[in-house]
């Protein structure tokens, strides 16, 4: 079954003066997916989002959203009319009350879902007469997401939606995103530093490091493919180079040689036997380990 790609970036580069923020970034997000975009500060997450929204133009390569070329002036208007974006700052018109903003916003969206807006308003316990400038960070975030989810957009792009939220507010936000993707088939791309959030609600994960994508795939496939193989030797661990496909990194610590593989353990285990270790252990790998290893080792 050929999946329809909502986002397709190929070899995207973006330079700000002498600094290259994106160095040939590839990213694919199929329709209906919830994709978590992970990376350190300055890895290129926000620049990626800006390229997709047509807010910055790539220096080279191409990003397509709904099949339209992002960065092309006409196409960007079309892309943004089908996309809802919540920035990291959750900027809202702060001179208004919640109720005023909710009356004012639908005019801009022909696909506005008043039913969703009123459901989420009750769920989030947002008061219509509250001034936006007085809202807490959690309330601001919920309001921004409420507006984004009610626009009827096919694609939601969220920059750090849960940053600075307490666990209860985080869970509410995650529930909202799961529901949005489940009920309406909305495609979601969200950047995050919260690995737990990504592990919980995403079905795809993309890890960006130094302007490139180092992992991009179905999260459960990534989980199934990554294995840590630990070899214990009687003496100091040998300085072995593994040739098997998918070896991400190797670490020697005293008698222990630890190999991270992105392609199961069979190849590495077969190679390891020749080294005659005292024991071979195979461990599943958490997303946190995958994240730390891939951004630590890749160039």
């Amino acid at each position, binding site marked *: 079954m050929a999946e329809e790609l909502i986002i397709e970036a190929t070899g995207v580069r973006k330079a700000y003066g002498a600094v290259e923020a994106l160095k040939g970034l590839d990213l694919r997000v199929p329709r*209906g997916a919830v994709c978590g975009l992970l990376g350190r500060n300055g890895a290129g997450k926000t620049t990626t989002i800006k390229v997709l929204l047509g807010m910055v133009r790539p220096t080279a390569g191409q990003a397509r959203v709904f099949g339209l070329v992002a960065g092309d002036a006409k196409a960007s208007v079309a892309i943004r009319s089908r996309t809802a974006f919540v920035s990291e700052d959750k900027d809202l018109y702060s001179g208004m009350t919640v109720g005023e903003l909710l009356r004012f916003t639908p005019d801009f969206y022909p696909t506005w879902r008043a039913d969703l807006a009123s459901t989420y308003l009750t769920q989030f316990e947002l008061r219509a007469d509250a001034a936006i400038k007085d809202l807490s960070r959690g309330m601001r975030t919920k309001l921004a997401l409420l507006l984004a989810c009610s626009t009827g957009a096919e694609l939601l792009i969220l920059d750090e939606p849960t940053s600075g939220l307490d666990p209860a507010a985080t869970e509410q936000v995650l529930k909202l995103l799961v529901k949005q993707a489940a009920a309406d088939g909305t495609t979601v791309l969200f950047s995050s530093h919260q690995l737990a959030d990504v592990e919980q609600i995403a079905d795809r994960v993309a890890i960006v490091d130094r302007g490139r994508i180092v992992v991009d795939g179905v999260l459960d496939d990534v989980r*199934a493919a990554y294995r840590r193989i630990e070899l214990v030797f009687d003496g100091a661990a040998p300085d072995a180079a593994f040739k098997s496909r998918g070896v991400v990194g190797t670490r020697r610590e005293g008698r222990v040689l630890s190999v991270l593989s992105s392609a199961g353990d069979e190849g590495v285990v077969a190679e390891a036997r020749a080294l005659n270790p005292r024991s071979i252990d195979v461990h599943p790998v*958490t997303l946190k380990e995958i994240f730390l290893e891939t951004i630590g080792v890749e160039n």
Partner: protein
Amino acid sequence: MIIKPNPSLGVPIYLQLVGQVKHAIETGALRPGEQLPSIRPLAEELVINVNTVAKAYRELEREGVIELRHGAGAFVAETGRARPGAAEKFRGAQALVADAVGQLRKRGLHDDEIRRLFEAALAGLREAGGRGG
């Protein structure tokens, strides 16, 4: 809820769901013909991705554990009956594991270490035995 995956394990969530449903059937917590929660409400309740739940249900259907009736939902297959003595077998296995854990503790291993040993053994066995079973 008998189904509750742990996203931070290194094990794919859909496989956790498949295992938990099978286990519920084997112990009799779910009976043949009984309805399972629909995909969307279950995803929303567990706050996990809807595609992940759908994938687990497809896998369970492929293995003949559940039946997906169009428009009506998911049901435990009649052939998915609890195996005779499954509950006893499971209790026996629990005793075996409890015994192993007890002995390991006696040898001075911490629970974290024991958990890692079990996970390593399972990951190794699964690879050695091949997938898709």
